[in-house]
């Protein structure tokens, strides 16, 4: 399967322009990662707060603004997951955190939505990066901190799993 790559051209942009251009991307990525729209909004806001503070260190020659923002979003989400796990341990709760499923009214079929929800966050994020945001292999690898080959493998497994779950639900 060949996925199209949409690269942001290397240019010096302002934070405002980058935020306006990539807010949906960051938000969509976080929705797929957390399966919680409210949480994704909070994490997106936190992501852009961090990005604003770190904007002086951003180097457009190294990565596109979208890739850079997704890296920050991922770190922010992982921090939240860690905090959530610590909280769960403190409360000795064995139940998974309350998660609001992605709304069906956003355009996904119920089968696809259910199948996506059954995937792990790791699987969903690679689908979000490569399919939803249409990052190329190298950009996705940079966000995930792994090699492009590993991204390809992880995406292939996630899509196969998604297809299998879809078949079960159909």
């Amino acid at each position, binding site marked *: 399967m060949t*996925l199209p790559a949409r690269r942001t051209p290397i240019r010096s942009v302002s934070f405002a322009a980058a935020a*306006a251009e990539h807010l949906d991307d960051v938000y969509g990525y976080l929705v797929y*990662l957390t399966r919680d729209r409210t949480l994704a909004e909070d994490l*997106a806001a936190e992501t852009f707060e961090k990005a*604003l503070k770190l904007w002086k*260190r951003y180097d457009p020659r190294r990565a596109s603004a979208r890739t850079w923002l997704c890296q920050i979003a991922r770190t922010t989400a992982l921090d939240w997951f860690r905090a959530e796990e610590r909280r769960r341990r403190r409360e000795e709760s064995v139940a998974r955190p309350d998660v609001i499923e992605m709304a069906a009214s956003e*355009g996904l079929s119920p089968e696809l939505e259910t199948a996506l929800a059954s995937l792990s*966050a790791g699987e969903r994020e690679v689908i979000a990066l490569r*399919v939803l945001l*249409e990052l190329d292999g190298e950009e996705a690898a940079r966000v995930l901190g792994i090699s492009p080959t590993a991204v390809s493998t992880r995406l292939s497994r996630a899509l196969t799993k998604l297809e299998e779950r879809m078949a079960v639900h159909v």
Partner: protein
Amino acid sequence: MSEPLLDQIREAKPAASPELRSRIRALEAEAPSARRSRLASLHLRPGRALALAGSAAVVAALGAGLVKGLTSEPQSQLGATGAGQGTTGLDQSVGSPTGAPESATKEALAPTGNLGAPATADALAPTPGRLQRFQAEMRLRVADLEELSGATKRAMQIAQSLRGYVVSVQYDAPAQGVGGAQIVLRVPTARVQTALTQLSALGTILGQRIGIEDLQQPADDLTSQIEDTQRQIAQLRLQLARPTLGDEERAVLQARLTESRRQLSDLRASLGGTRAEARFATIQLGLTTERIEPAAVSDSRLDDLKEILAWEGTALLYLLVLAGPFVLLGVLIWLALKLRRRSEEMRLLERA
């Protein structure tokens, strides 16, 4: 996976709500000047900073070598002899460690009839078993003032190592121009060949003169005179021992005895001086530099540069050997931490 399904995912891309957009815009409003500055582009990542530091170190090392090679003044390395401060010549006399007589040195420097044309030291060697005055002059050329300093010190060391001594040193190392040194050494005659061989290695031989004066005959004459005087003294003592000797005659004999004793003392001193003269050979060593050609300067500085770079390479190697294990350990720890963090992230994402 079917393309329509992927299209469905793309088309159903979640969009940020107007509230979220407002929140982000509010962030921008709070910090309107948060634009990427030109200075920010100079921010260095650790890897690039490391590479830059390494490059800078190499450039600095090369630069230091070049600067050292191009600007080094030979005079600056003569500090140990005190001759690096300008045109002041150094006239240094070194005392005799063995207490041997030095008064005859200047006279010995004058060429005698025995001093001939340049010849090898081996051709004219002192004859074992005979008292001889051995004199040698040697003129050497050294490359520059730095070598002049080294050769001067080395010549003094050679004399001392052969149980000889330095009679005098005249050292002249001007800031510019030709430098030179005149060294007078005295070494045991039995070791003069060794001394000449070692001294000739200090530079290029420009000339060499060797003179040998036989002292055996004068020494024999003196010995004979001493024996005569001793016999004379013995006879005078016998005469003075006679009881029938008159006062006037006794006084004359007593005066002759005193004179003979003084003469004997002088003869013995003279014989001692001759023998001492024969025990030590005098070597006058002349060192000089010539005006160095520009090509030679370049070669010399290139050699300096090579030497400095070699030294720096050695130092770098030592540093690598010393720091290598620590760097390796650091890298391993860093990799382990990275692996641990990644596995923790995967675990978190699997659970989420």
